[in-house]
């Protein structure tokens, strides 16, 4: 799992550098958290979410613990869905990722408000961001399945 976290983090950084971290960005670590949870269950999902969030929080500016708690919750919630849908159900993956990332984004704004951190709330951007990530999610799911099959 540690290899997955570090590899995911490096790719995440590279994606952010080339695609941008705004509405058009792909949050690979969050997608990996959701999909690992869907494939492997709550335990690995929450652990991956916790450690990937911690690594990102430590190495980037912003609120420490924000990504840690949100991804842990995300991993736990998505892990609860394991086995409740057929593996090839791309539509389910899309909608679940979309809803989870919308909740993740709003929660992130909420945490920033609570801790007095700067934030930007644009519902259009959140929807676009979530939809983009939801579109990529089935691909990440397939990759996770492939990695774990090995």
């Amino acid at each position, binding site marked *: 799992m540690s290899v997955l976290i570090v590899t995911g983090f490096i790719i995440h950084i*590279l994606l952010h550098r080339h695609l941008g971290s705004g509405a058009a960005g792909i949050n690979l670590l969050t997608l990996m958290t959701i999909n690992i949870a869907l494939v492997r269950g709550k335990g690995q999902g929450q652990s991956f979410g916790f450690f990937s969030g911690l690594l990102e929080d430590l190495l980037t500016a912003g609120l420490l613990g924000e990504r840690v708690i949100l991804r842990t919750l995300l991993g736990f919630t998505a892990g609860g869905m394991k086995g409740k849908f057929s593996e090839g159900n791309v539509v389910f993956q899309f909608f679940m990722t979309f809803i989870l990332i919308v909740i993740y984004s709003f929660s992130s704004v909420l*945490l920033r408000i609570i801790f007095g951190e700067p934030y930007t709330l644009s519902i259009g951007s959140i929807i676009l961001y979530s939809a983009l990530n939801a579109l990529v999610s089935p691909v990440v799911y397939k990759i996770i399945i492939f990695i774990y099959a090995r």
Partner: protein
Amino acid sequence: MKNSREKNTFWVLIVLSGLFLLSNTVRPVSNIRRVAVNILFPVSEIIKYPFDSIRVFGERGRTLSDLYKAHSLLKKEKERLTREFRDVKAVLDEYNAFRKIFDFEDFIPAEAVAARVSVHTPENYFDEFVINRGRADGIKKNDAVVKIMGRRRVLIGRVNETFENSSKVLLLTSTEFRAGGITGGNVRGVIAGNGGWDIQFDYVPPGSDIRTGCEIYTCGTGGIFPGGLAVGTAMEIKTREFSMGKTVSVRPFIYPQNARYVHVIKIGSLVKEHSQ
């Protein structure tokens, strides 16, 4: 069993996450984090370095490729321009050759019209010829007709009659021809045709300093010719009786009968030259 372990882990992770969040409010912890970030920053930079190098290398490759394309385009453009330059040079050489043939010079007035002598009958050999320019070219009666010789504008005559596409020119050698003249020594007189090869410089004041060999020009005060048109060289000076002044026999710089190509200076340009 597994579920309870997962739940316990979840709560442990949530508590830890909460602690991390709360640590934002405690200043020493924030400072520790800043130190940690500062320590870990070079690590992240090291991780990024090979990827950045690849990216930079790729960008350089793209730049090189763009430069190569630009170079190819410029090379083609250079070849095209070289061909064009060669063509233009050929035209220019041809133009200069024609200029040489026609004795064109740079100081030809803008309003001068080049013309060719089209009719010159033996009956009017010393009096007039016809040129191939007329009213359609803006030629008017009394326009000066000159021949460009090197840097000189040599007087040939003046337009006497105009038609649509041709004009009659009264020649310098005609007995009807008159023009105000002046020498280099500022001696004034009247240039008049003689009906023969040489012309006369009449009404030169008695006692004026005029010698053979001095050059005679139009004085520009007659209202027809601009000043400074070269006419000829004084050959023989005669003093007239009864204090009538001197008469000078003048050899024209060019005999109008020898001219094949001439320039007509329009009166409008003459007025402009005088007003300047």
